[in-house]
């Protein structure tokens, strides 16, 4: 069942919004931002799907604490791995993830693939997953402007995605790479929802003084330079890593933990800004 070139695939029919998380630079927190966006949207009661197209370095299974899970096949396609939703029936949201990480037998295995193979995998991820009904599909990407990015842009060309959230860190070495990514978005005509500055400042737990480890203000300057919305900055908070790493040692689920943490309060206004752009539903 080959999807016709140039037509959005059936698998995305019931997906209302598609958001990509991009950055030219590696390690700026694309996966962290994706995770936090997903958790925040979930906490607001939305149905969220997360697609990880970082094929050689998938981080999302670890982020969501789903490392031992695997993708199952059904008559309608691949079934994404769902976060166990709490017993509370008042929750209307859902959260499910697709990543190449689920398809590896050993977590240390490397995926040594050249471009054409990566392109084929991404095509399958777009056309063969049965997401079902979703409010938001978040797509986490690897750094750069290469095969994965060209492929996903091609696959989504007619799928009318909402646009991209660009993640950067404040230092100019990082924003230099991110500028390239913004130019990429312009070239493939992908709307930019806004820029998030991650790792902006670290508050010393001993004396509460804020140090700008990777300087600060780079994201805002970048947004002004390219006249795109600035969504806000996220300080470095070791609590996020702790939350992710220790999620299995708590009684409550990651989604509940996140909702109660201070991280949610920082992230909510950022997401609200994106939601306020009121991009029309595509479904």
């Amino acid at each position, binding site marked *: 069942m080959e999807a016709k070139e140039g037509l959005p695939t059936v698998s995305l029919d019931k997906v209302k919004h598609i958001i990509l998380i991009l950055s030219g630079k590696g390690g700026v927190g694309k996966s962290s931002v994706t995770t936090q966006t997903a958790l925040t949207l979930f906490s607001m009661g939305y149905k969220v799907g997360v697609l990880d197209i970082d094929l050689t370095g998938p981080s999302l299974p670890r982020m969501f604490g789903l490392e031992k899970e695997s993708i199952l096949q059904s008559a309608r396609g691949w079934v994404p791995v769902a976060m166990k939703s709490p017993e509370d029936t008042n929750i209307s949201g859902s959260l499910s993830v697709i990543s190449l990480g*689920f398809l*590896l037998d050993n977590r240390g295995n*490397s995926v*040594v693939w050249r471009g054409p193979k990566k392109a084929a995998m991404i095509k399958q991820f777009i056309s063969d997953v049965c997401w079902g009904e979703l409010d938001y599909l978040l797509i986490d990407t690897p750094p750069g402007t290469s095969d994965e990015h060209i492929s996903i842009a091609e696959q989504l060309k007619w799928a009318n995605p909402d646009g991209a959230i660009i993640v950067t860190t404040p230092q100019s070495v990082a924003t230099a790479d991110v500028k390239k990514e913004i130019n990429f978005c312009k070239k493939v005509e992908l709307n930019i929802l806004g820029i998030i500055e991650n790792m902006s400042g670290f508050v010393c737990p001993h*004396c509460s003084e804020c140090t700008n480890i990777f300087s600060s203000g780079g994201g805002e300057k970048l947004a002004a330079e390219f006249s795109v919305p600035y969504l806000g900055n996220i300080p470095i908070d070791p609590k996020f890593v702790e939350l992710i790493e220790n999620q299995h040692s708590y009684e409550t689920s990651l989604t509940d933990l996140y909702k109660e943490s201070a991280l949610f309060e920082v992230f909510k206004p950022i997401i609200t800004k994106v939601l306020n752009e009121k991009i029309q539903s595509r479904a």
Partner: protein
Amino acid sequence: MSSAEVIPNFNSGSEQLKGDLKHPEPEHCPGPESENAGKGDACSGCANQEICESLPKGPDPDIPKIVENLANIKHKILVLSGKGGVGKSTFSTMLSWALSADENLQVGAMDLDICGPSLPHMLGCLREVIHESNSGWTPVYVADNLATMSIQFMLPDDDSAIIWRGSKKDQLIKRFLKDVDWDYLDYLIIDTPPGTSDEHISVNKYMKESGIDGALVITTPQEVALLDVRKEIDFCRKAGIKILGLVENMSGFVCPGCKGQSEIFKPTTGGGKALSEELGIKFFGSVPLDPRIGKSCDNGNSFLDDYPDSPASIAILDVVESLRDAVGDV
């Protein structure tokens, strides 16, 4: 149904990975490098058939040229990490500065990160251009004994995006290895992008004959980073690249205000040290976070010269020493 069954064309050219699969599909892929690429029975219906078929067969005539071009380089060191933003470029820069501080050493730094080149920025030579002559591309000289090469020097505009698929990157990497006139070098430091894909396969393929001394693997302490670094180490083992050692970057932060120490990227699973013990590779040490490193890199200055007393400088110089030991220098 088992999860492995849904992977199409899962064939990384490595026996180990194949062994992990329950079904080694598409069963008899001859491999894109083989004589029968695109012509085997398994190839009919494979999405890559056309690509494989059109690939030139037999040994690459450019490899002897690469060997010749790199013949006067004593030590070739790859700086690798599966993860992005852990400090590969920063470390490549530091290494270049540190080695070239010795006037008797000729050092070259090559930037293979095609989509996100950072070395020119960090070495403070962003505005330079490459000259082409009969002997090839002349690299940019940052100091008398420190040369560098990056795609950044060839861009019409600082911010130009390089939207290239792998095969095009492969071609450029080949030209970087074949046509850059390094002359004589004691050290060639090769900075790489994150991941285990085209750039990594290409550089290994093209340099295998001329010999790579080994790889310096960089990580940060948290498990999410170590996870990707594990993959890179697995790649090195499959590709036959020797791992010289592992460096943990951004480990610990000393507040400039109160001198209190905190762990920003918590080593919940023991960090780089535990990983190197687990995998039996040398641990070269930990480099603490220092906000001034980022500043120096942004301005293109040598952090080691700017702040020789910083604990980070001392740690970096230790790593450089261990590295020189590992390649049998000094």
